[in-house]
């Protein structure tokens, strides 16, 4: 069992990991940048090591300092959290080579899933429905045109190393394709130093639905139902809920089985997410996030499973505490991401509370939010017996939330939760864009 864990991350996810570790009796050491010396995780952890200056590439992405910090501070494991080095196979290898446990899947699994083309192939081989597209990468415009003809327009150009919408382009007819291909490939080259791109059928306004998975090193792979992350602003998730308003029990079972089959096939350990697009009742494999996700609390609250705990048990070589048969998706949960649009000192902070409200944040009055990192400052998650009750509770909780000294998206979250289209549950990933165009937010 892991005795002492270095957390190679910051903010709310570092706080989240510390909480479960404290309940498990695991000592925590937080690696932090000079910009985070006063941060809540640094204060909460049993120990802390400064690993570099504010810029992430010199601190939270500084593999040498992170691994050295783990070894010298007496840790026997490293948790990468979310983002930064969480899906970096090289980091995972260095951690293992230093004789430490990496809390995540095996490096070669991270590698494979990081390559969207290979990941898609693996899914196809297990006859998991995928979005029609080019057989692997497209080397040039000629190949691309051939592929596009067979798929049918509109098509979307994606980066093999992709993520976060970078290197993604929609093409409506052949005339655009050649140019777009160059742009996308160039963008991908810049973002991931890998210009490889491929083509897929472009699904108009689909739902984004993902399956939460936990697996151990003993062959147990369990899914915790789905999360609906259809409310997005330029590919950034803003609201996540479970269960999804559009997923039937049958579809849930099919998607769950597909996700489990895929990750069991890869010998996946720890927490991971299989992302699908859902359109007209059919689901299409999109990609796998080989890490715990920001929105994992939503699944924790509908299943009663502490996902970080299962992740740590799995990394320790222990068996999961649950089997598929034990998993009951009960009630409803929804998360609103609270993002900062300015840095600075927090002059007042009032957290919502009471029945059915969970708050995950690293804010406190007097904290100086640094301008260097991700803009997520809080996750407000509420539960309800059903979606209607849950959304009423979210509205109530948002109305209690006070953050002063920095600008946030609290007001726009209130508008989304109150929006009739969102309430109807009947919309696609284009929803938010449409609302913004109308000036609705």
């Amino acid at each position, binding site marked *: 069992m892991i005795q002492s864990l270095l957390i190679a991350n910051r903010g709310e996810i570092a706080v989240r990991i510390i909480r479960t570790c404290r309940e498990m009796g695991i000592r925590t050491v937080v690696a932090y940048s000079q910009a985070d010396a006063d941060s809540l995780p640094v204060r*909460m952890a049993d120990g802390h090591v400064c690993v570099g200056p504010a810029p992430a590439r010199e601190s939270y992405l500084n593999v040498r300092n992170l691994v050295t910090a783990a070894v010298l*501070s007496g840790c026997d494991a490293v948790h990468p959290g979310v983002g930064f080095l969480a899906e970096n196979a090289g980091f995972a290898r260095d951690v293992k080579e230093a004789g430490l446990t990496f809390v995540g899947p095996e490096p070669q699994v991270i590698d494979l899933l990081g390559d969207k083309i290979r990941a898609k192939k693996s899914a196809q081989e297990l006859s998991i429905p995928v979005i029609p597209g080019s057989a692997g990468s497209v080397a040039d415009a000629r190949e691309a045109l051939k592929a596009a003809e067979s798929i049918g327009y509109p098509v979307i150009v994606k980066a093999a190393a992709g993520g976060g919408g970078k290197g993604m382009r929609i093409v409506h007819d052949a005339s655009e394709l050649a140019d777009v291909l160059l742009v996308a490939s160039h963008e991908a080259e810049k973002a991931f130093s890998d210009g490889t791109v491929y083509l897929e059928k472009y699904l108009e306004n689909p739902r984004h639905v993902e399956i939460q998975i936990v697996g151990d090193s003993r062959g147990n792979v369990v899914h915790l139902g789905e999360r609906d992350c259809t409310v997005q602003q330029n590919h950034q998730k803003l609201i996540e809920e479970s269960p999804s308003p559009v997923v039937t029990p049958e579809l849930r079972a099919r998607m769950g089985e597909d996700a489990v089959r895929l990750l069991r096939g890869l010998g996946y350990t720890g927490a991971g997410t299989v992302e699908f697009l859902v359109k007209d009742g059919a689901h299409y494999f999109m990609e796998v996030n080989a890490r715990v996700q920001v929105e994992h609390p939503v699944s924790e609250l509908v299943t009663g499973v502490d996902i970080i705990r299962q992740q740590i048990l799995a990394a320790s070589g222990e068996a999961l505490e649950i089997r598929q048969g034990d998993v009951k998706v009960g009630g409803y949960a929804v998360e609103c991401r609270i993002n900062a649009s300015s840095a600075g000192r927090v002059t007042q902070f009032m957290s919502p509370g009471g029945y059915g409200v969970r708050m995950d944040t690293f804010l406190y009055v007097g904290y100086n939010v640094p301008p260097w990192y991700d803009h997520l400052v809080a996750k407000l998650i509420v539960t309800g017996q059903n979606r209607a009750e849950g959304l009423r509770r979210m509205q109530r909780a948002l109305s209690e939330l006070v953050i002063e000294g920095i600008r946030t998206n609290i007001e726009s979250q209130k508008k989304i939760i109150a929006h009739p289209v969102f309430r109807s549950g009947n919309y696609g990933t284009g929803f938010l864009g449409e609302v913004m165009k109308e000036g609705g937010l």
Partner: protein
Amino acid sequence: MELKELYALMERFEKSGLSEIFYKKDGEEVCLKKAAPVTYAAPMVAAAGAPVAVPGMPAASADAPARHAADTEFIRAPLVGTFYRAPAPDAPPFVEKGDTVKKGKPLCILEAMKLMNEFQAEFDLEVVAILADNGNMVEFGTPLFEVRRV
């Protein structure tokens, strides 16, 4: 100091990261303070319960001297590692307190991931104090030496 000078000082001070200014000149005194920049380590640490004592946990940031004399400066650790004062266990230290060291001469070794990184003086200096202990872990930014340029 004229009042308008005081106002200028106040404005500059507010923009600054400073928490306090004290200024004294032939009988004149000015002291400006900002509200405590809220540091609540204590309760959180207490809350954290007795942390497990672990050999090599960085005493660094905590124990390191906050400030140095006006005419001296710190040489800080540019990486996380183990601090060695000598090239080998049985060898004499590169430098001792009071030594004058020429630019380019070795000061210490920082070991990280089995690599011995030797660090040299970037200018001629006198070693005023050696702040890190041989064989101990240092964090990024931990003061290793207090030195005076010569």
